[in-house]
């Protein structure tokens, strides 16, 4: 049975990728490393960030709002202290990066050259300090520019991660492709709120946070379908994937691989369970190569 997939020139043993923000080298012992196709690091920024004030988490109906605030040690310490520990795991490591300005992205990409990483994911769901805090991923043009500059600055494999707050998710994906992206991943969390009605204030330490988990799956799946249909580069689907069936839906919708976020927090052995489930499904359906599944959705005439 062939589970290996290709994302441009990045070949993964299987399509299960750990999404950014739910894994750390310290917690590696909780994860079934051998069942993981690739790991995306927690997003790294140019300078260290202490993160947002608590509470940083809030459970909602079938969802989780987080407001971690990109807490991280900054790219320099990351490269020195954390990256080597990621690299020891023996799994392709994709480093998630984010900047405060557009110029930060290529600079960071340069710093990551020659480190043996599998590639870079661009986290575009963060505020652009130069543009009044608007998220980089809102505008297709900005995404185009960032991707192109990153590709120019390094020969690394690059995958922009789209935000569902994009003005137009398909346009944004196309812009990424045009900028030279090797693959596109989506979605990041949905901007969300929850209010303490007695205190009349946010139930998080910040006003807003990002919604993830099963609640968003049907929307994420639709966006992945739309983007996969529009671009020619591979798409990595993400958003609310909790089990093998969810993962298969994303593959059938057109994703070449999937990222698992929230589900890893609830059950870190889920990557192995999902992979097993996919194997079992392929067996039952007589499918030998997982690539047969990718984009296999049948469209009824009425839908076009």
């Amino acid at each position, binding site marked *: 049975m062939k589970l290996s997939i290709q994302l441009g020139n990045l070949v993964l043993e299987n399509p299960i990728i750990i999404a950014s923000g739910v*894994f750390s080298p*310290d917690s590696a012992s*909780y994860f079934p490393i051998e069942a993981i196709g690739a790991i995306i690091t927690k997003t790294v920024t140019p300078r260290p960030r202490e993160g947002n004030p608590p509470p940083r*988490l809030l459970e909602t109906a*079938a969802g989780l709002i987080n407001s971690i605030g990109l*807490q991280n040690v900054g790219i320099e310490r990351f490269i020195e202290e954390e990256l080597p520990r990621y690299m020891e795991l023996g799994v392709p490591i994709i480093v998630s990066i984010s900047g405060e300005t557009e110029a930060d992205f290529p600079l960071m990409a340069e710093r990551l050259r020659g480190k043996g990483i599998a590639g870079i994911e661009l986290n575009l769901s963060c505020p652009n300090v130069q543009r009044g805090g608007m998220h980089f991923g809102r505008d297709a043009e900005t995404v185009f520019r960032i991707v192109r500059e990153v590709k120019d600055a390094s020969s690394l494999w690059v995958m922009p991660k789209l935000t569902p707050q994009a003005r137009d998710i398909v346009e944004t994906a196309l812009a990424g492709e045009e900028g030279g992206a090797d693959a596109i991943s989506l979605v990041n969390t949905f901007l969300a709120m929850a209010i303490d009605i007695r205190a009349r204030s946010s139930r998080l330490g910040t006003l807003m946070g990002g919604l993830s988990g099963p609640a968003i799956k049907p929307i994420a799946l639709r966006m992945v379908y739309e983007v996969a249909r529009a671009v020619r580069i591979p798409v990595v689907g993400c958003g609310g994937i909790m089990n093998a069936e969810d993962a298969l839906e994303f593959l059938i919708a057109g994703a070449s691989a999937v990222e698992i976020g*929230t589900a*890893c927090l609830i059950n870190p052995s889920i990557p192995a369970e999902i992979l097993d489930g996919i194997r079992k499904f392929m067996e039952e359906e007589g499918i030998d190569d997982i690539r047969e599944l990718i984009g296999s959705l049948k469209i009824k005439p009425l839908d076009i």
Partner: protein
Amino acid sequence: MKGSFKAKVISKRFLSDDVFLLKLREPIIAEESLPGQFVNLRCSSIYEPLLRRPLSIYDVEEDNFLLLIRIIGKGTKLLSLVREGDELDVLGPLGNPFPYRMYKNPLLVAGGIGIAPLHFLLKKLSFPILLFGARSKSELYGLEDLTKIARVIPFTEDGSEGERGLVTTRLKEFLKGHDVIFACGPMGMLREVVTIAKDVGVPSYISLEERMACGFGACLGCAVKTKKGYKMVCKDGPVMPGEEVII
């Protein structure tokens, strides 16, 4: 790989309307747990509630471990409905224990349901002394059993048992001769404990709570402010030096 366990429900016993003791069978957790550590438990197999629930280890008995649980929302409500023989998905033991081996003569201070980790701790100590406070007698969970294993000085706000007043009112007095405080309880109490410990110049270790997702240090969700920046309650705690935490 430190996966989660399927722990079997051995027994469930209510200590009050909304607090119950759950005995679960899982030899590895029972073997490895230290006082102050916790487990992270799934309350249902569906997505509501989505997250696990952190609960301190109350006791260990052979292959079993016990949890003292107060029903406050839907997760704990679901847990209160489990039946003997049911299996629960448990991750643990997690977090850092009280550093009880480093000190000779600790004073323990518990508020209400905060007794959970301290009960387990008591059993590891030779001549333990516990100040145990609550609003009223019915919230001094397991008081009778506690008196069998420790010198317990109860406090209640309504005077229905022991001294009337907060557990911290005479803390300074009681501290004499002790070289450390181990405390767990509501935030207000912990704040007071830390202040008094600092005044007297005795170290304190407090067990903290924060909303958690993973419980094993991956999500950076359970942050608490400390003098050294944000620390994670699940990984750097839940037991932390009182002097470091900014609460």
